[in-house]
């Protein structure tokens, strides 16, 4: 018994030593690791390291630009910028085009996607997905530009030791970011009226902002553009795709032309001056009208500001990819347009088709075979003349680099528009010379007809003529709604077109549709906002 017991004690001691050692070891493991919960991302850049690479400034600015061209960070869809809508639908240009063209007399789209049919007929709801997405796209751009400006303040650059050429380049980048912000704010007040004004001085994640008036934002756009024009990169092949001083002047011209709508006080003189500045910049009318909408339109001398696309390098389901595919259907052969298939979507409303005279070369691409002029069923692609204005084929006839995603860039601003702004501003008393206006208009007519047969006389140059000529020259380029609003014809009964108000023949519509509604969700997320009248 004694031996047994002493053996037991020894083993107990041994055991407790083992236990103690094990417990101590565990506690020390616990003590060293228990406070460390920080695991930083490894396969993603963070604010802690992104600007250690000087190239990141350019990459960030490029993202502000690409907000107009792509919808996310991976291929044509993937890692989307905004949520709540199909990513392909969410692309800036596609939404802008739909907001400007579908409710006007120019286009219908045949698809039944939720919210889309109402865009054809001026009957959208405050929750309309396309209206909502347009609003958020505008503020996505504003948010990106503001954050770029926040990240490139002198203080931040000093702190990161940025000097020399990079510092100079960043100064240019900042001007470009401000241009892009002003560009989107213009769409904001044009489509939605009174909206919040957020700048880089508002901290990220701030409380809901107050609503600015249309005029306050108009003033902001004007002062920003005035301030940055001199700092933007000069035009040329090396800066294609970027905003030049001429782009800023063009934006000013557009904003001034519509000043009466935005502020109640017109500024046609400002529009004429800005348009003249553009005209005096190194751009010229493209002798080949069709080149402006072809896969090699980056070589067109007429384009002042483009949203570049590339079949391999800049892919999207929106933009010109959408325009080329959706314009194709019926008996049309997709290969003709350099694409792999038709989407059977958009056609002309009869009023737009009828606006073109027989000799006008700007209708040469219309497809009437197998299509009717009148539209009895919007869902049927063969109702309405097809208008494949944009193609993925070069002027030499070669298809683009990719059959789904096109190479064709979108001409946001081009010289012809500046000519027509000059003419309209002149007619509206903005100064300038009537003969000059006529020359500009006839330059476009001559290109369209291939000779002087389409030229007009001084007495024929009237405001209604300019509006009609804008439709012919700039058809489906995303200007129509703004133009009709400026002429007071977009809503109401002064001008009725097919499917306006929801009937095949068209009816008068409520003037509330001159503005899109502030999205219903936005009114909840930001209780400071007041809905537009009538909604």
């Amino acid at each position, binding site marked *: 018994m004694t031996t047994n017991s002493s053996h037991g004690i020894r083993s107990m001691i041994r055991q*407790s030593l083992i236990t103690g050692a094990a417990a101590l070891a565990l506690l020390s493991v616990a003590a060293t690791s228990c406070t460390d919960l920080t695991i930083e991302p490894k396969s993603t850049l963070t604010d802690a390291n992104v600007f250690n690479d000087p190239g990141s400034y350019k990459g960030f600015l490029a993202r502000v630009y690409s907000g107009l061209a792509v919808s996310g960070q991976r291929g044509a869809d993937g890692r989307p910028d905004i949520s709540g809508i199909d990513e392909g639908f969410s692309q800036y240009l596609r939404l802008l085009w739909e907001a400007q063209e579908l409710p006007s007399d120019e286009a219908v789209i045949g698809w039944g996607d939720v919210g889309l049919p109402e865009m054809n007929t001026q*009957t959208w709801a405050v929750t309309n997905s396309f209206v909502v997405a347009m609003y958020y796209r505008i503020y996505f751009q504003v948010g990106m530009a503001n954050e770029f400006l926040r990240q490139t303040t002198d203080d931040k650059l000093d702190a990161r030791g940025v000097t020399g050429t990079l510092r100079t380049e960043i100064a240019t980048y900042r001007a470009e970011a401000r241009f892009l912000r002003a560009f989107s704010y213009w769409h904001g007040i044009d489509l939605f009226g009174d909206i919040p004004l957020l700048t880089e001085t508002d901290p990220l994640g701030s409380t809901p902002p107050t609503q600015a008036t249309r005029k306050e934002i108009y003033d902001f756009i004007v002062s920003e553009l005035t301030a940055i024009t001199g700092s933007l990169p000069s035009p040329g092949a090396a800066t294609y795709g970027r905003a030049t001083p001429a782009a800023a002047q063009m934006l000013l011209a557009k904003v001034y032309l519509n000043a009466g709508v935005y502020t109640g006080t017109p500024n046609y003189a400002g529009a004429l001056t800005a348009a003249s500045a553009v005209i005096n910049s190194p751009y010229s009318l493209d002798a080949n009208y069709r080149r402006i909408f072809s896969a090699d339109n980056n070589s067109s001398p007429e384009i002042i500001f483009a949203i570049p696309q590339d079949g391999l390098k800049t892919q999207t389901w929106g933009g010109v990819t959408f325009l080329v595919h959706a314009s194709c259907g019926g008996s049309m052969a997709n290969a003709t347009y350099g694409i792999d298939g038709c989407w059977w979507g958009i056609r002309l409303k009869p009023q737009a088709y009828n606006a073109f005279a027989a000799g006008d070369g700007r209708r040469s691409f219309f497809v009437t075979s197998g299509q009717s002029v009148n539209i009895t069923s919007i869902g049927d692609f063969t109702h309405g003349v097809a208008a494949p204005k944009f193609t993925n084929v070069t002027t030499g006839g070669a298809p683009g680099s990719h059959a789904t995603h096109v190479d064709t860039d979108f001409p946001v601003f081009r010289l012809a528009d500046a000519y027509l702004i000059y003419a309209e501003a002149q007619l509206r008393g903005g100064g300038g010379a009537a003969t000059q206006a006529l020359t500009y208009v006839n330059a476009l007519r001559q290109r369209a007809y291939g000779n002087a047969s389409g030229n007009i006389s001084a007495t024929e140059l009237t405001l209604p003529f300019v509006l009609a000529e804008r439709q012919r020259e700039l058809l489906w380029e995303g200007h129509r709604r703004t133009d009709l609003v400026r002429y007071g014809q977009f809503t109401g009964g002064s001008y009725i077109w097919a499917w306006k108000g929801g009937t095949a023949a068209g009816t008068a519509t409520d003037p509330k549709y001159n503005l899109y509604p502030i999205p219903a969700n936005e009114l909840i*997320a930001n209780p400071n906002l007041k809905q537009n009248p009538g909604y």
Partner: protein
Amino acid sequence: MRPRRFVRNTLPALLALFPAVAFGQGGTIRGHVTGKTAGQPLPGVTVSFGSRLTQTRSDGQYVLGNITGRDSLRFRVIGYAPVARLVTLTAGQTTDVDVTLDAQAVALAEMVVTGYGEQRAGNITGAVTQVSADQFNTGRIVSPQELIRGKVPGVQVVDQNEPGGGISVRIRGTTSVNASSEPLYVIDGIPIGTGAGGGLSAGRNALNFLNSDDVETITVLRDASAAAIYGANAASGVVLIQTKTGKGRPQVTYTTSGSASSITRRPSMLTADQFRVAVTTYAPQNVTQLANANTDWYDQISRTGAGQDHNLSVTGSTPSANWRVSGGFLRQDGIIRGSSTERVSLDLNFSQRLLDDRLEVRVTEKGSRNLDQFTPGGVLSNAAQMGPTQPIHNAATTTGYYDWPGNTLQSPDNPLAVLALAKDRGTTYRNIGGVQTSYMMPFLAGLQANVNLSYDVARTDRQTFFPSVLHGQLKSGQRGSDYRANQSQTNSALETFLDYTTQPLFFPGAIDLTAGYSYSQSNAEYPSYLATGLSTDLLRGNGVTTALTTQNVEDVQESRLISFFGRFNYNYNDRYLLGASVRRDGSSRFGTGNQWGVFPALSLGWRLSEEGFFRGMSSVSDLKLRASWAKTGNQAFANYQQYATYVLGDAQTRAQFGSDYVTTIRPSAYDPNIQWESTKATDIGLDFGFWNQRLTGALDWYDKKTDNLIFTVPVAAGTNLSNYLTTNIGSMKNRGLELSVGMPLLQKKRGVDWSVQFTVAKNDNELTSINPVFGTNAQAQRILTGLVSGGVGTFIQVLQPGQPVNSFFVYQHRFANGKPVFKEGAGADTAMYVDQNGDKVLNQDDRVPFHSPSPKLMLGHTSNIGYRGFDLSFTMRAYMGNYVYNNVSSNLGTYSEVTRASPYNLHASVLETGFKTPQYLSDYYVEDASFIRMDNISLSRGFNYRQQPIRAHVTIQNAFTSTDYSGVDPTAGLNGLDNNIYPRSRTYSAGLTVRF
């Protein structure tokens, strides 16, 4: 006595640091406790001698050391009559005392696995259900979750019908919108995954690595107080799975089964004749495209699925060790061609006791390889869409299969060409293992230290290949695609805890204290490669093909969870029970300032049947009232949400600057303060047992409120870097009732034994708010969800305060003569649908929430009937109030589908509705999918062949389903969207179990 008092009073925390040597001289009592009827060893019996106390181990053995004197040696365990023996012990003496206990209500004595320990079923104060192997569902079982379907009240097991397909489990409803609502799985004490769910897999159910033949018990911690010991991972409930261990003499068991599955219901598409009539009437321009075949495309893609399952296990034990080694092979073909699953698995459990049985080491090791073949994408939808008048083959095409002429986007693909030429497969290797050591401290009886080390390594290979010659590739312009993802994940955990059981001197009752620390880390990599526009199809995805575009993705995901936890259980004579626990969790997923969360729980139990006033009522064998409150968390959301990250664009999203294409960098919207979702839950329950537990059951009422939901909500435009931000906002509630009853219906009546079990569960889910800041306006806040086929970006469901999560969001169709109204032309929309806001315009503002996919009531029934050596069992299940959106019907139930460039086949609903344009948002397609289903009928019989026991069984799964739902299956999928889902099978299987 002084040193001992010191040790006891300062409690275990200090003990690990100061293992004071405090041994006196004394005697030892040891012995073996068994149950009287079966002679089985009884574990966990409290053995006390004076103030000294211990419990019997799993083999019924106990040792009480270092005691002297004369006192009663008491044996007590719930469910058995207590026993006392007078023992006199002198120093240095060793006495053996073996006892047998009389059973009173055995079920109460059953050990139930709880987090970090075990408890007697009768002493549990939370809502916990343990299902053991003999109660499991039988037949063709690929995934362990299928074992308990219909067996536990309030637990919804939703599969996707594919063999081994993904399984979702909802315990007491959905608790989250954007984080996972899957429960936490703990297998043999090892928490799986990185929060909730089963971890990494190549696309099928992640728990398929576990051979269900190896499972001994599955315990569901339904209420928050029981689950709360798992803190930030517990909000969706916890499922504890224990695998089998070796018992008794060495034994070899072989089980095998074979099965055949066939399709039960298929979508109602038009026949060739009906299709021809539709095309002739509504799209005469397309008639010339029609051929004269009569092809049933669904017949062509489906088949009888064969299955086989083999398991061989070797088990055994010695007085100080036990082991079980098993190997399994399972193969199951799906009823749709191209789908199958195959598993090779190995499971090892070894347990050894050392150092006078004080130290127990248990090693577990589970490894498996799962090989999954998937039906390539588009086969099911194209089988529905492909014209039945068209032939299968066409010798003139590149593929040899017929396709509609032209490569227009407006025609379906031949599903048989896809089946023959495309491939989609995944391989998952997984290995989970651990070493669990527990050590009974020699200087203080009842104190046990536990250290568990575990790891979970998974590696997957998912591969899809679509050759460029496929019609679908030609028409979409993708021109061949090759995708490969090689994901890997390594999780490791250290868990250490002390457990102290005692009956203190200074007050009555027994206490059980647990305190621990847990550290777990997950490292994962998700690289993938996608190439489109393949230069050749010859390599079939096995090599790198030159491609027009390639996308390479690498994603590193790491996370860490560090926890401290403690639990206090108090038991006064099995009459008054109290449980309290607290867990403090720190997670790398939480933002600065929110890194630690505290999750407390309190539960009380009062066994009324132990009270004097119940003593007289001999029919009442158990009556226990329970009440609990707890707070649990959910951290099953993405890593790194609190960081300001910048996302690099890929090569296809560059921006053109002159001739330069610049790779872009996008800052992401983020919330630096992201934290856990928090669920506070109350549960009131009653456990009852009558006539010596012949009739037993439990009734529970619960109320769960989840706050700080991880929600992706719209933010004021321009204030952040996107229009939606993932943040902690919004709340949800689930409230319900659960009842389970088990009883014998017949006992040895003309040789028949028949026992039945019923479960009833009712749950009401409501999203109470999305953004509470905006007060009453919050009612108007809506987030669309539930993407369906038909148009682009068509969402059929809504998240809206005051409604159940994922309520359908539809126009209210007007009906005439029992049919939905259809009109065309101006004013048609308001003639067809109710203009809810009366503004004379029908648009998105007129949609209303309408029912939801969650069942309001779930009923389960199991019967076990024994007759002359035959055992017949069946399991039935019924859901009531669950709705499904029939997307096949809404997408293809319109004549406009035949007017496409090449006509699509139509859903037969068009014969009733006559729709000529699609009506995706009509409530007509939201169907009541309530059903009753005979899930399982099994007949088995045991017999001896040359003295070897053999058991044979035949089983029918999904014998019948009765429902008004018109689609293929009212139960597939959690979200209530039926868009060409995999159809449900009826499975016949037969099997044998042989023991040597």
